[in-house]
């Protein structure tokens, strides 16, 4: 049976005590929706050290095809920690448009 999303679940589908029995379902929440700033990149300065990835509290930074480290904006909360920690100032935080 394909797994129901939360919006499809009825009260009968809920596990006893709302226990979550499968890992990873938090990925369903697009927690980046309420971000007020987002990271932008000048990859020409990037030395691919991965420090931004280590520091990101959301674990949302992965390497793209070219090997540059980039945030998944579905989950990035715009905290700016990556920009602060990047040794070569690749990352610049900009305001989200209204």
């Amino acid at each position, binding site marked *: 049976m394909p797994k129901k999303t939360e*919006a499809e679940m009825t009260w009968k589908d809920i596990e006893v005590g709302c226990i*979550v029995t499968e890992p990873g379902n938090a990925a369903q929440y697009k927690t980046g929706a309420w971000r007020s700033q987002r990271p932008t990149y000048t990859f020409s300065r990037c030395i691919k050290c991965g420090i931004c990835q280590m520091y990101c509290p959301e674990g949302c930074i992965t390497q793209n095809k070219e090997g540059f480290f980039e945030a998944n904006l579905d989950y990035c909360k715009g905290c700016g920690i990556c920009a602060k920690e990047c040794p070569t100032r690749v990352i610049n935080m900009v305001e989200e448009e209204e």
Partner: protein
Amino acid sequence: MAKRKGIEVSIALSDAVKLTNADVIAAYPITPQTHIVEHLAELVANGELDAAFIPVESEHSAMSACLGSSATGARTFTATAGQGLELMHEVLYVASSMRLPIVMAVANRALSGPLSVWGDHSDVMAVRDTGWIQIFVENGQEAIDHTICAFRIAEDNRVLLPVMVHLDGFHLTHMIEPVTLPEEEDVSRFLPPNRYPLPLDPVKPVAMGDFAPPVIYTEAKWAQEINLRNSKSIILEVWREFEKAFGRKYLPVEHYRSEDAKTLIMTMGSFSETASLAVDSLRQKGESVGQIKLRLWRPFPFKELRDAVKNADTLVILDRALSYGGPGGPVCTEIRAALYNEAKKPKIVSFVGGMGGRDISVAGFEQIITQGMEIARKGSPNEYEIFGVRE
């Protein structure tokens, strides 16, 4: 054969917990519950009960430790009273929504202020809506029996809800009464091992106590509510099984000489026995009086209550707690609501008394009942009557 002996009710209740072979007890001492946890600590220290006793720094921690322990599938017990129950308050909701079968004895105590260590039901009423199964007991034997039943009810996989056993502080906890402690092997036969379906287990990890956004919160709460309501049939089943095994019968609404009575007095807890004596006395004087006692407070026994009062003209209810600025005693208010749409229902008179450890004697109950009958005839300007206050 189990022997009858005279013993303090708190000690008897702890011995009952020992008979259930509880795995974890996390508790903080507070009057008038102290003897219960003291005795349990002793039993554990002496090696008579193979359990972990967690001496926590507060009741909030006690209940939090109980959550963790119960979540591993351990049989978990705690006890508290009054302010301690209030300090646990927010965690009580978590226990019921996480469906953890914790059993807790509450030595009912008045809430401060003014500071009072003595008994009434203000602590019970403040936790009415926490989602726990709640049972009132009236004497030492019931304290033992319902502690044992509480584990079987709570841990039944069709229920999985925490249970409070309410016993009146001092009036019951500190009485020495003749009781029969069941034999250990009989309790083991009656009470199967705790089998929590999804315990914390490194081999099969689960996440507990997660958050629920608006899209799922209502469904989660409804699942919990349906479960609590449905638990009633299992509670009754467990009490029937208990009767078969131990010969003592318990009902959600207990009766005393009520079948043909025109006037009923309704009570909860240890004052019930005194009220029964008042019923006897008024019967002797030719009054048509009987008594009902509320044993099961949550889930509320609507059907049994309606059946119990349908032939009476007057129902006098004694609450031992106030709802400040409200319509009367909290129990009375619920019973009024439960009967409002019934075609045939008695007149209801609300009394509040016995607060903060104040005794009500047999003569006092006679006065409550006769005054109640008069109010039913003539009416009263008051939402409720306060009993025994000095004007």
